[in-house]
């Protein structure tokens, strides 16, 4: 197996950047952003079909090459385990049995913070129903571990609020979650710019999921490319093993001996 790959459940990927398909100006921009990001997994939402739509009007799936990209249906807008389970069962039917899904059960419409107790209930039911669940959660290490123990294939703690662009607000909790986990940890929510993604990867995250950071950038397709490099750079830095920090003492990089004007 290529050591650069990473595994989610039974699937293997090379890109560690997962992106959403919401908030773009049009489907063409969505398509270009996906391409420039190098993402191999993109999230989609499940919603009622617009019945007034002309049958010739394009739809999102017309712009995504399912041979190259894995779709990840989400449960955005669900506030209960029942709603989330129902949504993903419909998604599985829609996508011909596809079973890799993103679970999110929200607790509050202003902050979109996850309702972790309903999330645990939904995760257990979905896993029993044969889904491979990637789960959006808070940065609570106990909940993260519990979701892993239930059988989620990836744990996705928020860096900060969905769509807030605030970056990683609690790196210490995130590090605890990473260190205690045996399944991929994927930062999901709150990434704002390239450095946020790099920092997450440097800390040891397996991947980063973002939507608004790209779609709401002034140049979304440009930002998609930046994010691809940011995730790669962070991952390489992590594997290379950073130097130690020293808060109070300098360490010169040039020799202290052979000076033209010897000291002391």
């Amino acid at each position, binding site marked *: 197996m290529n050591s650069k790959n990473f595994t989610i459940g039974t699937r293997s990927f090379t890109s560690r950047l997962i992106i959403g398909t919401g908030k773009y100006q049009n489907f063409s921009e969505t398509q270009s952003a996906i391409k420039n990001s190098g993402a191999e997994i993109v999230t989609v939402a499940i919603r009622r079909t617009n019945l007034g739509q002309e*049958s010739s009007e394009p739809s999102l799936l017309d712009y995504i090459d399912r041979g190259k990209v894995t779709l990840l249906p989400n449960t955005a807008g669900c506030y209960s385990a029942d709603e989330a389970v129902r949504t993903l069962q419909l998604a599985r*039917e829609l996508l011909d049995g596809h079973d890799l899904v993103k679970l999110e059960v929200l607790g509050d419409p202003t902050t979109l913070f996850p309702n972790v107790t309903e999330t645990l209930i939904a995760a257990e039911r979905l896993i029993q129903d044969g889904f491979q669940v990637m789960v959006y959660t808070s940065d609570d290490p106990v909940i993260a571990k519990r979701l892993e123990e239930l059988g989620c294939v990836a744990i996705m703690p928020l860096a900060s609020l969905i769509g807030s662009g605030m970056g990683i607000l609690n790196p210490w909790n995130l590090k605890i979650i990473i260190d205690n986990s045996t399944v991929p940890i994927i930062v999901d929510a709150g990434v704002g710019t390239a450095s946020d993604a790099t920092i997450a990867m440097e800390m040891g995250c397996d991947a980063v999921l973002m939507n608004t950071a790209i779609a709401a950038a002034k140049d979304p397709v440009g930002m998609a490319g930046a994010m691809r490099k940011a995730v790669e750079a962070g991952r390489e830095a992590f594997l290379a093993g950073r130097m130690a920090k020293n808060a109070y003492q300098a360490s010169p990089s040039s020799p202290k001996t052979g000076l033209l004007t010897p000291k002391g």
Partner: protein
Amino acid sequence: MVEIWVNGGSVTLEDNTSVDSLIDSLGLSDRKIAIEINHQIVSRSRYDSITLKHEDKIEIVTAVGGG
């Protein structure tokens, strides 16, 4: 005639209209969709064998952009 609910809106149909016919009349035959009738998911293979009854509640969903 039967009156059913589709995505929250009222629709009137001829008696013995199949799910397949409904989908066709909505222009959705070539779309990736999933359907629930009265909270039960209906698989595509059964669209032509299921007839819609009065007061049936249909939900038709599709994949859209989201994070």
